[in-house]
């Protein structure tokens, strides 16, 4: 019980760390995911193939392995000496982007055919159709799966703690190494994650209500 009160700063740091890593990788995943979804529905075959390969490989690789790749392979390709936070963001963001891509793509598929046809008939190009007509409508369908993806992302961010990023798991490990009762630590950490995940689903429910599109 006392472990929370005694180590309040640690818990706070861990909580903020989890928020930071979740936020930054969510942003990366969103940008990459939408881009790759655009590739996957584009009329250009090489890009479609690239998008499919991207999704297939990233979805079927354990996240832990991606973390290893980020820590040991990425520094060889790009600048060496990137901070663990940046590398973890890359691993989490790339992994999650494949799920975002699939959600966006299925959202695009739910937009009625007539909408895209109408857009084309008034002379819009592919990217205009996608940007001005289809994606804004797809957004609404995509929101519920997106909320689940970000909740999963929050939980996956725990793995970053095992790769020396300061967040909740790293701190729980630290405290249990100091001999505190794991059951209490576990419960407090669980509560912290519940707070984050409930906020995410609440936020998305709000968004859903705001962005309603009459169909």
């Amino acid at each position, binding site marked *: 019980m006392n472990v929370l009160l005694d180590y309040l700063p640690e818990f706070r740091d861990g909580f903020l760390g989890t928020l930071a890593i979740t936020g930054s990788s969510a942003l990366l995943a969103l940008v990459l995911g939408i881009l790759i979804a655009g590739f996957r*529905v584009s*009329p*250009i*075959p*090489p*890009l*479609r193939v*690239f998008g499919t390969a991207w999704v*297939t*490989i990233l*979805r*079927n*690789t*354990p*996240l*832990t*392995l991606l973390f*290893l*790749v980020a820590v*040991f*392979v990425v520094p*060889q*390709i790009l600048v060496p000496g990137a901070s663990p936070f940046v590398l973890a963001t890359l691993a989490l963001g790339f992994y999650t982007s494949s*799920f975002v891509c*699939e*959600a966006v*793509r*299925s959202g*695009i598929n739910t*937009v009625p*055919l007539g909408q*895209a046809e109408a857009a*084309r008939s008034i002379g819009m190009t*592919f990217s205009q159709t*996608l940007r001005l007509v*289809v994606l804004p409508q797809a957004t609404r369908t995509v929101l*519920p*799966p997106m909320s*689940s993806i970000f*909740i999963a992302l929050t*939980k*996956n961010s*725990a*793995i970053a*703690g*095992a790769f020396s990023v300061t967040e*909740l*798991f790293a701190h*729980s490990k630290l405290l*249990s190494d100091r001999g505190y009762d*794991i*059951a209490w*630590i*576990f419960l407090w*950490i*669980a509560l912290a*994650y519940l707070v984050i*995940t*409930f906020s995410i*689903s609440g936020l998305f429910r709000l968004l859903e209500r705001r962005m309603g599109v009459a169909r």
Partner: protein
Amino acid sequence: MSGASVLYDVPGPKAKVRNRVYSVIGSLAVLAVLAFVVMRLNDKGQFDPAKWNIFNYAGVRTSIRDGMLVTLQVFAVAAVLSLVLGVLLAVARLSDHKPVRWLATGFIELFRAVPLLITVYALWVILLSNREDFGLSGNQPQFWALVLGLTVYNGSVQAEVLRAGILSVPKGQSEAAYALGLSKTQVMMTVLIPQAVRAMMPTIISQLVVTLKDTSLGFVITYEELLYSARQMSTNIIVNGEDVYIPVIIVTGSLYVALCMALSALANWIERRGRQAKTGIGVAEAGEPVAATDAMEVGDAVPDAPAGEKTGKEN
């Protein structure tokens, strides 16, 4: 291709030319990125034959094989246990007795909300510090922490999948069964669960893919599964004064991708077969509706059994 044609017309002569130009630019861009990665790795000497030669040694092969076997072993035990737990929890959540319902709901919500890594770690610490009481030795604490962690988490998810499946069975079925005089247990066991399992098979298998991927969390609690032995190998083997991380990561990564894709392919095959069969039972999509995305809110995250166009469709 399904969604592609929605967004653009059949290309005419002009668009064909334009698309071809974009195709060339697109492929060049993709190739350029790949070439950059390969060149950088080559510059660092990662494609040095000596580094790849390690896979010719019996020791390396044995540790990859052992790691693979351990991974599959953990996966097999955890898969069976999580499915059993899933059925039990699903039935308990639909029980007529309030306390049973609450208990099951609480269990499911708690373990779905906590990152699996933290569950596994907590179990490991508990098992390790009480190993005498449980009569565990060697690396059994790691094994059971990993298996139990995977079981409680995936069992909770599978329970929600099965519950959605049970709820999707038309009401007339259970009414008819009750009318024949079957007991509640009989209705559940002989009418509802078989149909729920059938309808949800693709989703269940997709969740098993997640279970398979998550066995790699054993790495964090130093259990000798595939990823951990890969890590051990890459730090222990030194070629030309350098570790062999990259070749080992490439090889083990392909193994994982191959295993998971085989399971996903099975899910897709069952989905297709299920759609063709004329049993009147809708089959859920093989995507990863609950799996990857598994959410907190029970009601809307779980696919409504024969899921419509809601979640990622594979092709």
